[in-house]
């Protein structure tokens, strides 16, 4: 179900053509998906205040309607473990084109997956699951299905990945929580069915999959022009 608040996020982002990370995360959080604790800090004091509250280290990311791929402008900083580091990073980010604040969030780790969606001309909304992170377009280890998904589809998507053993607990690592991963994909798929006329594509990259959670680490929604 798409609530009024969620609709407002899509409408407000219309002028940029896409929904930036903090708003996209709020959107998916409202839909019932697991997201990290985060704060959109427009001032340095807010950033430091948030970190003091949730504890160091935190992750910082630039917020700018002109920056779609943050890594490419060095707009992601991990391991910020002191007020001084937050300050340095905040100052550096403020020089980036279109700076609209800094996103701070709790530090997460886990297996990095990508979950995405696209509206295909011939088949309508499709959902993607694969190995995520910055190398996603190099490894191209992904599975695609027409939405809406059933649980069976999610399981066969996982099975079809070359890296599936990493999800199943490779070399002594704990397996990822399959129930949480399935739930995330099913919620995402039904959400996509609700909003596909307004969207072009969605990237949730990475989604951190751990033994207990499947958390949306980054999110962006490209809207239909």
């Amino acid at each position: 179900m798409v609530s009024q608040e969620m609709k407002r996020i899509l409408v407000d982002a219309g002028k940029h053509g896409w929904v930036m990370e903090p708003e996209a995360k709020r959107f998916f959080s409202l839909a019932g998906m697991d997201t990290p604790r985060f704060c959109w800090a427009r001032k340095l004091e807010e950033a430091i205040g948030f970190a003091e509250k949730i504890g160091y280290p935190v992750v910082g990311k630039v917020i700018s309607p002109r920056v779609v791929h943050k890594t490419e402008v060095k707009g992601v900083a991990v391991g910020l473990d002191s007020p001084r580091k937050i300050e340095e990073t905040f100052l550096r980010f403020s020089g980036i084109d279109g700076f609209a604040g800094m996103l701070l969030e709790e530090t997460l780790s886990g297996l990095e997956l990508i979950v995405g969606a696209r509206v295909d001309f011939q088949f309508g909304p499709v959902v993607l699951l694969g190995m995520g992170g910055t190398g996603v377009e190099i490894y191209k280890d992904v599975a695609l299905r027409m939405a809406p998904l059933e649980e069976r589809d999610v399981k066969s998507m996982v099975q079809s990945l070359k890296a599936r053993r990493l999800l199943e607990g490779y070399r002594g690592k704990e397996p990822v929580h399959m129930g949480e991963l399935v739930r995330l994909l099913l919620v995402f798929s039904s959400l996509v069915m609700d909003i596909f006329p307004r969207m072009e594509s969605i990237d949730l990259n990475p989604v951190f999959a751990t033994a207990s959670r499947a958390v949306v680490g980054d999110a962006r929604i490209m809207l239909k022009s």
Partner: protein
Amino acid sequence: MNLKPMFKPRTLAVIGVSLSNERHPANVIYNKNNLRQQVEVFAVNEKGGFYQGEKVYPRISEVPEKVDLAVIATRAETVPDMMGDCIRAGAGGAVVISGGFAEVGKKDLQDSLISMAIKADFPFIGPNCIGIYSPPSVDTLFIPSERIVKPEPGKVALVSQSGGILVDHLIRFWGEGVGLSTAVSIGNKALLREIDLLNYFAQDPGTEVIAFYVEGFGENEGRKFVLAAARCPKPVIVLKSGKTTGGSRAVSSHTASLAGDYEVFSAVLSQYGLVEARDESEMISACEALSCYRKPIEGRMAVLTGSGGHGAQAVDACLSRGMAAPPFSDKMREELGKQVSEKIQGIASFGNPVDLTGSAVDDDFVQAARFLSRRDEVDCLLLLLLPYLPGVTSDLGARLSMVYRQEGKPMVAYVPHVEKYSMLIEGFQLNRLPVARSIEEAVQMAESLRRFQRW
């Protein structure tokens, strides 16, 4: 819309038969149906007169019988007028051979046909197509009979956007012994599209397998097509052209870049249990295998061979196509060993592949195949039959077919296709077991059984 009169017509009107040009497509169609098909055929040309000693009717409305199917082969600008005539005369449907519509930018002209047909609930195929080959009733492919080879009657319906590809497949079907129920070229697919033909052939008692050559679907049309195909109990095979996109699209998200048009196409087909043929060779293999078997397999292959090299190649091909050749337990090997004649027990290997060696005789293959057919470890047999082995006779195809009839486990055979071995090959074919001309094709056949899934 009722398509049956188009595919099983009793009467055919050919509109546009020329009184002066023997090579006109309408004349080719008139002649081949008049001489070789069961349908009763009438020539139509506004000038009237006589053709081949038969009366030419100035308009379809003057044909003395109710027309089931009309072929329209006149200049594009005159087609709406001709179609209007067909509708008023109560014809059952039309094949519009004429080109000169959307494919040359005249979308309005094509749209006028569509709206006319929808209003009158009048089915038509084309325009810009070669139409329908539905033996023994009718054949609108405007290729002179002496220039075409025609497959044996059978159970595969073939639907192609391109007429040339359709004819090419007919030739290959003939060469591989794949039987055909009906072939249709849908050209610009203005009104009747893939999904309409899918729905028709799903109901057609003469068709067991439905194969498509698709260039592309319209907006959201692919979704409707796969959903309909998933509901169809008959296997649906799709060969897609245009897998590569010309030039690069500007994409702003990883998903848009990774989920390209063809990647989505291929993934969605497999999600819904349609069989994607990645090239023409897979298309033919899939048509042949799926017209023999309807039961999906998981792909646990037992490879039975008289040559170790063939066995090893087959196992490689199975694994590279995502199927398994599970190793057999010691106990199973021991039991299998007891099935074959004493003289090969010491030299044959009973793992997977099962290599009975060049000393094996027919009985050994039959006994081993029967044993393997009864085991749950395997769900399909791959038989690599080398007809040049001294102990193998031309009876073996028929004898192994009998094992299939009794045990019910699918078998795919490889036999080199040369004249000398034709009796062995026919032993399989006459009993409706698929026979490939290479190991790779045999494995393709098995893979198509695995790709066909129904939930």
